[in-house]
Every structure is written in structure tokens, then in C-alpha cells.
């Protein structure tokens, strides 16, 4: 487990930054709720005057904005966007940073099999995502309660947990990408365009009202409006998320076992 330990240690600082930033971002936003709670009707009226396309793009769920969870769901899409960047970074870096930074020669000439290396790295990513979400919930739940003492915590947790699921999907896709490509020169140069690309596709889909586009982008697999209304996830999309993650990870193992590590 020395590779796992190494990954956790070298990712510690980044993990702290990401988890605290995500939690801080969500908390700050929820504090706004306290400030405008009494004028929420005005806020909603302003949003209602926006063209329907803009409302769809923003993902406004009318009728829920008067609870802290509903208000929070409004910004949650952007939390997930940031979380996805963190996840893709982790996924792409796992193998991509070894080949791109030329440390692969070191690691792969050690007495450890490639399957073991990838398994330890994948586990390290999973643990880091779990920790991110644990910190996130530990910070945001008390903040939500401070804003609305009778907040529906079940709903809040159900919605917030989708951060983790979307992160797992993105991390798995990142892992596969970082393994398959010859070498990754810069992790961020991969993760930012990819994540924003998926995000914009989802937003465009909402604007033009094309429901099929939802299948293309993991950002739309856990719909906040649906979760708030029904108190559960959409089974089909949840299964899709699980399948994509499993297939991407399995494909990464196959690709890594066959990968040629070239000099330079």
C-alpha cells in the first residue's frame, strides 16, 4: 500500500484546499439566504421576469426557493462544476502525471505490478473524494441549520450526495483519459476544457429543451428539481452513472496493462 500512502500524502494539500473551498463556497451562499429570506418573493419575481431560456440555463426551481435547501440547489450546480474539476484533476493525474512528468520510469521499474499501482491510485482517489464530501457535509449541514432550524436535512443530504456521485463519474473518465493518452503535458489543460465542455452542453440542452442531451453530460444525471420534488434519484440515470464509472475504471486497467511507456 506504499503507492496509496504516497498518493494520499502528496495530495493532502490539494485535498484540503478543494474540500474547504467547496464547503466555503456553499456556506457563503447559504448565508445569503439568511440575508434575503424575507425578500425571497422579490427575488423569485425577478427570476420569473427572465426569459424561459435563461431560467432553464440557471436551473431555477420555482416554489422551492423559500427553503434553505431549495435556495442552495440554485448554486449547487456550480459546486458540482467545481467538484468535477477536482475529480477530473485527480483522475487524469493518476497515470497522466506519471507519464507526463516522466516519473513513470521510476514507478514502473519498481517491484509492483501495474494492476496494483492502478488499484492503489484508484483507491486513493476514492478516499480523497470521500474525504472531500465528508468535509463538505460536515461544514454545510450546520450552516444550513443555522439559516433554517427546521431545514429538511434528508433532502439536503440527498442533493449534496450527488456531488460525490458526479465526482466519481468524472474521476473515472479522467482516469481512463490519463491512462489512454500517450502523455499528459498539463492536467489542468485537460480537465478545465473537458469539464466546462460537459457543463455547457448540459446548459444548452436545458435552454433548447432537448431532453436527450441529458444522457450526454454527467452534470444532468442527478437533477436537483427532480430530487427536491420526489425525494429520490432517477433510477435510470443513477444506473447510467454507475455503469459509466465501472466501465471507465475497468477500461483503464486494461489499457494500463498494455500501455507502452516511452522514453522522453
Amino acid at each position: 500500500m506504499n503507492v496509496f500512502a504516497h498518493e494520499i500524502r502528496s495530495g493532502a494539500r490539494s485535498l484540503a484546499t478543494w474540500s474547504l473551498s467547496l464547503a466555503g463556497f456553499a456556506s457563503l451562499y447559504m448565508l445569503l439566504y439568511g440575508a434575503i429570506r424575507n425578500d425571497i418573493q422579490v427575488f423569485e419575481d425577478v427570476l420569473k421576469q427572465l426569459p424561459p431560456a435563461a431560467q432553464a440555463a440557471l436551473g431555477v426551481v420555482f416554489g422551492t426557493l423559500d427553503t434553505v435547501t431549495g435556495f442552495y440547489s440554485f448554486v449547487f450546480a456550480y459546486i458540482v462544476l467545481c467538484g468535477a474539476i477536482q475529480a477530473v484533476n485527480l483522475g487524469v493525474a493518476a497515470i497522466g502525471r506519471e507519464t507526463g512528468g516522466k516519473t513513470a520510469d521510476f514507478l514502473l521499474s519498481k517491484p509492483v505490478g501495474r494492476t496494483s499501482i492502478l488499484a492503489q491510485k484508484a483507491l486513493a482517489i476514492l478516499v480523497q473524494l470521500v474525504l472531500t464530501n465528508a468535509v463538505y457535509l460536515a461544514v454545510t449541514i450546520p450552516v444550513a441549520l443555522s439559516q433554517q432550524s427546521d431545514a429538511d436535512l434528508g433532502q439536503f443530504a440527498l442533493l449534496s450526495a450527488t456531488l460525490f456521485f458526479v465526482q466519481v463519474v468524472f474521476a473515472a473518465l479522467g482516469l481512463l483519459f490519463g491512462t489512454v493518452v500517450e502523455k499528459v503535458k498539463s492536467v489542468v489543460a485537460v480537465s478545465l476544457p473537458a469539464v466546462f465542455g460537459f457543463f455547457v452542453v448540459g446548459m444548452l440542452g436545458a435552454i433548447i429543451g432537448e431532453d436527450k442531451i441529458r444522457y450526454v453530460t454527467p452534470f444532468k444525471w442527478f437533477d436537483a428539481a427532480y430530487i427536491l420534488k420526489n425525494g429520490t434519484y432517477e433510477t435510470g440515470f443513477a444506473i447510467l452513472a454507475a455503469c459509466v464509472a465501472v466501465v471507465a475504471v475497468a477500461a483503464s486497467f486494461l489499457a494500463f496493462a498494455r500501455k507502452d511507456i516511452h522514453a522522453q
Partner: protein
Amino acid sequence: MNVIEIRNLTKSYGKARGIIDVSFDVAEGEIFGFIGPNGAGKSTTIRTLLNLIHATSGSATVFGKDCRTHAPEIAREVGYLPSEVSYYDRMKVLDLLKYSASFYGKDCTKRIHELAAYMDLDLKRRIDDLSFGNKKKVGILQGLIHEPKLIILDEPTSGLDPLMQQRFFELLRQENAKGATILLSSHVLDEVQRLCGRVAIIKEGRIIRIESMSDLARDHYKKVGVEVGPEADAAFAALEGVTNLERKDGVVSFYYKGDINAVVAHLAGLRIRNLWVEEPTLEEIFLHYYQKEG
């Protein structure tokens, strides 16, 4: 017993040249040189042995085990110094070496400190603060701290200053005396000459010759340059073993193969202004010596 056995190893890349039908053995306790110009296929062969890349056809065994299917097991007894060294930038040297040691399940702390002192490497520095030469030293240490039975070095001395090269070679001789087998690739003939007992010469992906260093040296051409008047040229041309005679800027130069005393005797009768006798570079050997086999 052979530590390495390579049989008809071929690696084809799309456009770039790989290696074609490479076969050679390295016996236990040997220091084996693997020489050829840059891009000839030395690294490709070595990287296949280490399972970093996978051969298109042919086979290679290390310690009698298939290098592909038993890679982690083989790696336990192998120390590898890549030609281009690169480590985790944000780590301290000591932490990196401890990480390296952790793969072998041995306590290497004492040896880390001994070797660091010997190679004059500061263990407290961060990797990204190190010069290229110091990174190379980190590479040497991570390859040797677990006392491997087989040491594989790919262009080991680039970036090391002459003093460190000397210390490093001394270290390799000590490891060899303790029983380690060494495979060393290089395009610098001189360093191979200083260490190796036997060499394989690779050119354009194919092994063109495998011979003992002493045989290679006997067949060796020397490069001779004499600053002397043009009246001496005819006599040089008449000497047996002289080839590629040419005159440029008042200097007559030629390749000479044979008893050097014949040249010295001839020079004794001349009034010369300057004299050079040089080892040809490996590139020159390839150009002039192996041309017909190419």
C-alpha cells in the same frame, strides 16, 4: 548462468525505428556494454527488458523468468537508472529514496546515507531544486540502495562531472565485485571501454557485433593528426594500415589501424609542429569501420 537472455526481440513502432531481431546474453557477474549511436535502439531494448514497453515479437528473460509475465518479481532484484531522470518535484531527496526503498521491503536507511555521502548528495534538498547532475545522483541512489543483483544503466554518465563519473564507476566496480551483473548502455565508447568486459554493438535497430572489449580494442582505429609540411604526405600514405588520409589547414590526418610503433618510427624522422593521436568516437567507428556491414 545467464542473467539476461534476449532472443529475436523485435519492437516496431509506426513510423519510428524500433529494434529488429535483437539477440544477446549477459552472463552472471559480467559488466556488459551496449553501445550504439543515439536512436539505435539501446533504450528500446532496455525498456523492453524492464517491461516498460512490450515487444512486438521475440522474448527476453531475466534471471530465467519471462520479462513480461514476471516483471514485478524480476524488478525486486533489478536496479535501473534511466537515461533521463525525473522524480516527484515536490519531494525531498530523502523522502523519495525512502519511497523507493519501500517497494523492496528492505530497510535501506543505512545504505541511503552511505551512498549519499559517497556521491556527495544532499538528502534534505527538494527534487525540483536540484541540478541535472544532482538529479542523476538521485537516480543512481534509487537504483542501488536495495543492492540489486542486476544493475541496468541507460546512458548513466550524462550530466555527471568527471569526478562523480569516476566515483560512480568505482561504485559500480564494487557492486560488480560483490556479484552484481551490470548492463550499461552508452554512446560514449570511452566509458564502455573503462568498465565493460564484453559489448554488443547496435546500429539502426539491429545488433551488428558482439565481442569482448579486448577484441574490439585490438581492431581499433586511431585518429592521427600531424601538423607537418606536405612533403611527408606520400610517406604516410604508403604506411600499411592508413586510411582516409586527407590534408586540411596544414594538418595531415588519417585513420590508423595496426602497430602504433610504425607511425612513431616514421614520425621520428620528421620535423613536426604538432601531433594528435585520438580514439575515434563511436560515430566515427560506425562511419569507417562498420560501413561495409551496415
